[in-house]
C-alpha cells in the first residue's frame, strides 16, 4: 500500500505558523480532520519555525493533532531532544522525519533511534551536499540502510528519501531520482522510498500537473510513499489510478470505490 505522509501541519507554512501563534485549536483540528478524510496514512508534524519555541509548539500540536485523528504521526524535527519529548507523547508507532548521513545529524540521531519502536525517513544527504547522480543516491541509500540495520531496524521500517530536486535547474533531476528509486527498491528489497514530491516543480508554473505526473513516473519505478498534500484532489485521483495500474489494486476495487465516491473524475 502507498504511504501518504500528509505535509500540511508544518510551522514553516504561514497559515500554520499563525495558527500556532494564536493557539487556534480549531484551525489545526479542521486541517488534520481533512487530511485524514482525504486518505493520509501519517500526519507530519513540524514545529521548527518558531526558533526557541519548538518544544512548546510540538507538545501543543501533538495534543491537538492526536485529538483530531487516529492516524499515526510523522514527527518532523532534526533535534533528538524534541523527538524524545514527542515520542513519549504519541499514541501510535510514529514515523521519524529524519536521519541523514551528515555526521552531526547521524551521530545525534542514532542513539535516539536505538531500541525505539518507530519508522524512519532516511535522507540520502551527506556532508558533501545534495546528491548529483543516481549513483550518489544509491550509494548513500545503501550506507544509511546498512547503518540502520546495524542498530536493529527492519527494512520495512525504513523510508529512503532520495532527495527530489527541481527540474527547473537541471534537466537530469527527474531521471536521476527515478533511476535511483528503481535500483534502491531492487537492491535493498523490503525498504520503502519516499520524498517531498513538490520539490520537483519548484521554479515552474502549473506545479500541480508536474507533481502528479512525476508521482506516476516515480510509482512506475517502485516509489511507494510520498510527503504530499492529501487535500489536493487531483493528485490523490492520480495516485489511486496509479496504484490500480501498477497492479496493487485487486479487481480495481479501490479505484472503482473512489470513482463512485466522486473522488476520481475524468
Amino acid at each position, binding site marked *: 500500500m502507498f504511504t501518504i505522509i500528509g505535509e500540511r501541519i508544518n510551522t*514553516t507554512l504561514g497559515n500554520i505558523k499563525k495558527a500556532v501563534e494564536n493557539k487556534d485549536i480549531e484551525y489545526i483540528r479542521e486541517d488534520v480532520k481533512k487530511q485524514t478524510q482525504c486518505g493520509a496514512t501519517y500526519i507530519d508534524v513540524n514545529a*521548527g*519555525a518558531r*526558533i526557541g519555541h519548538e518544544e512548546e509548539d510540538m507538545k501543543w500540536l501533538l495534543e491537538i493533532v492526536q485529538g483530531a485523528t487516529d492516524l499515526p504521526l510523522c514527527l518532523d524535527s*532534526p533535534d533528538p531532544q524534541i523527538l524524545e519529548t514527542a515520542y513519549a507523547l504519541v499514541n501510535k508507532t510514529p514515523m521519524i522525519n529524519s536521519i541523514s548521513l551528515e555526521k*552531526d545529524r547521524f551521530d545525534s540521531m542514532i542513539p535516539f533511534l536505538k531500541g525505539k519502536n518507530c519508522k524512519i525517513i532516511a535522507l540520502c544527504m551527506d556532508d558533501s551536499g*545534495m546528491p548529483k547522480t543516481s549513483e550518489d543516491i544509491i550509494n548513500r541509500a545503501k550506507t544509511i540502510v546498512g547503518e540502520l540495520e546495524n542498530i536493529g531496524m527492519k527494512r520495512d521500517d525504513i523510508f529512503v528519501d532520495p532527495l527530489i530536486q527541481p527540474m*527547473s*535547474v537541471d534537466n537530469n533531476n527527474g531521471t536521476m531520482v527515478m533511476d535511483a528509486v528503481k535500483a534502491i527498491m531492487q537492491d535493498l528489497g523490503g525498504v520503502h522510498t519516499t520524498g517531498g514530491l513538490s520539490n520537483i516543480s519548484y*521554479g515552474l508554473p502549473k506545479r500541480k500537473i508536474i507533481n502528479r505526473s512525476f508521482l506516476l513516473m516515480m510509482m512506475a519505478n517502485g516509489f511507494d510513499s510520498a510527503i504530499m498534500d492529501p487535500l489536493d484532489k487531483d493528485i490523490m485521483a492520480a495516485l489511486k489510478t496509479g496504484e490500480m495500474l501498477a497492479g496493487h489494486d485487486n479487481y480495481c476495487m479501490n479505484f472503482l470505490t473512489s470513482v463512485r465516491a466522486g473522488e476520481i473524475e475524468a
Partner: protein
Amino acid sequence: MAITDILNAVVSLKKEDVVENVIAEINKGTQVDDILNKGLIEAMDVVGARFSSGEVFVPEMLMAAKAMQAGLEVLKPYLSSDTAAQKGTVIIGTVKGDLHDIGKNLVAMMVEGAGFNIIDLGVDVDTDKFVTEAQIHNADVVCLSALLTTTMPAMARTVEAIKEAGLKVKTIIGGAPVTDAYARQIGADGFSDNAPGAVALIRKLVAVAA
C-alpha cells in the same frame, strides 16, 4: 544594429545572437561600458522583473544568465579590470550546516548578471570564513542563505561575527524559512525571498554606502 539588439537577444534567450551582437557593437566602436550596462545588465533587469511578475520562470532566468555571460566573455578583454569591482563586491554562501544551494546559486547568478563582482563561498560556510573573505575582498555586501529552520541561527551568529569584527559590510539574508522579521531580529541589513529582489536590495545598500 544597436545596443537594444543585445538587450533583446538576452531577453529572448538567444545566446548566439547575444555574442554576435556584442561583437558587432565592439567593432562599431560603441563604448564597452554602454554595451555592458545598457545591453547586458539592463537585459537581466528586464528578465528579473518578468520573473518577479510571474511571466518567466527559473529555467528561462538560467538561460538568460547563460546568454548574458556569453556576451560578457566576449566583452571582458575590452573592459577595464575593475569594472565589476566598481559596482561592488558581493560575497555569498549557505551558512554552516546548510547544504541546500539552489536558491543561493540563483541569487549568485543574478547578482553577477547585474555586473557585481561575486564571490561564491559555496555551501556549509563557517562563520569565520564569511568574516575573513569579506575582509580580504573588501566586500560591500555579504549574502547568507539557509533553507532549514535549524540553520537559521547560524545566520544570526554570522551577522553578529561580522559586526564584532568591525566590518562595514552590509549583510542580507534569504531562503525559504527566512522572513523580514527574522532579518530585523538578528540585525541583518535586509531580506529578500527571490533573486531579482536580492539584486535590488544589494543595489540599494551599495548606493547608500557610496
